[in-house]
């Protein structure tokens, strides 16, 4: 159970770090071509 929770926390932490780094590089999620495009199809 602890390993599972640690995995969840780590996943969120890595995602947040990725968002901050990519945000710092100037990439917003709206600029993601395919995923945004797929939603609109």
């Amino acid at each position: 159970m602890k390993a599972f929770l640690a995995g969840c926390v780590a996943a969120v932490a890595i995602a947040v770090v990725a968002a901050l780094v990519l945000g710092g590089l100037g990439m917003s999620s709206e600029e993601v071509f395919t995923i945004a495009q797929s939603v609109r199809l």
Partner: protein
Amino acid sequence: MEIRMRLTGMCGGICRGICARLAGAALIGLAFLLVGGVADVGLGWTNQAAAQSGGSVRPPASANKWAPSKPGKIVPQGGGDVQKGAGAGNLPKTAGPQQSQPRMWRDIRRGIQGKVSIPNQKAGYLIQSQGQMWRELRNTKVFKFGAWLLAGTVAVLLLFFIYRRRIPIDGGESGRTMERFNNLERFAHWLTAVTFIILGLSGLNLLYGKSVMAWLVGNEAFAAPNSSAKAAWAVVTEVGKIAHNYLGFAFIVGIVLMVVIWLRQNLPDKYDIPWLLKGGGLITKGHPAARKFNFGQKMIFWSVVIVGGIISYTGVMLLFPESKSLIDMQSNQYWHAVLSLVMIAVIIAHIYIGSLGMKGAFQAMGSGQVDENWAKQHHSAWVDEVTGKDGKAPAGGAAE
């Protein structure tokens, strides 16, 4: 009694809903048939009238003067100036026929790139014909392939469960446990598993959401999030899309961790072929020997590493569209979708055998401790290794 009434009411509601939708579809189909039929009848009537009246429905003689002398060029047949043609006297000068430019449009259709003054040079493509092919592939073949693959996987597992039921522990639980996976191993597994489940569900929503969820939750709940407070599923889609973008990196970290921890134990060994020939003991009776990972688990591992690696690569490429051409992006998206669907099918089977399908299996990744009888049944060579019965020094994983 009350529960029964409620269930009856729910079933009635669902049935009414389905009936209403089917009736709606039937009405729309009928309407199309009627409109199409009326249009056909009307056209037939016009043709019939023309045939019956002979030359009375011919166009006026002046109309032929505007027929093109060759495709793509419109000139009056008299050879005169368009604006001053014999039949053009009644037309305003600005309403004259314009030159079509088939060569230019053909080049545009073939993907010729113009120049633009904005940073996004891809905007120089007016038409990218491969985009239509990609869209067609995604919305038809990939869509159907995924639906059949996932439904087929679930159906096969259901049949397997009916045939084999839950695979028991031979001789029952011994009461003694041994460590199967340590904290780091379970952490790596759950990091990858949790992210994959979220990525899989949010990805499926991107591919099937409009068809399945819009039908299930209704168009209002599926609409754009800013248009209505009722559009709850649109919020889920929006959050899911953002989560999909960023959790992908956690998935990559999980794969790298698993490679570092488990690569050596997932290399081929002498137990693999006999295990495969016996079907892993899943279909026939008797359990073939295996080390820490049997052949089936190795296949899961390499699927995650190789297929998951390609999915990760294409996913990261999709996050940075500026660095790739349009056709590369379409290719990346196609393989990302197809391989993800394959991976989801593989993981559904993995989840089944690791939980419902086999007694005692979940504890391996749950608490990390498995029953000794379970370990001897499925991984006898590994038990010999960790207990030193193979004549070598114990490799770790002490019995409790």
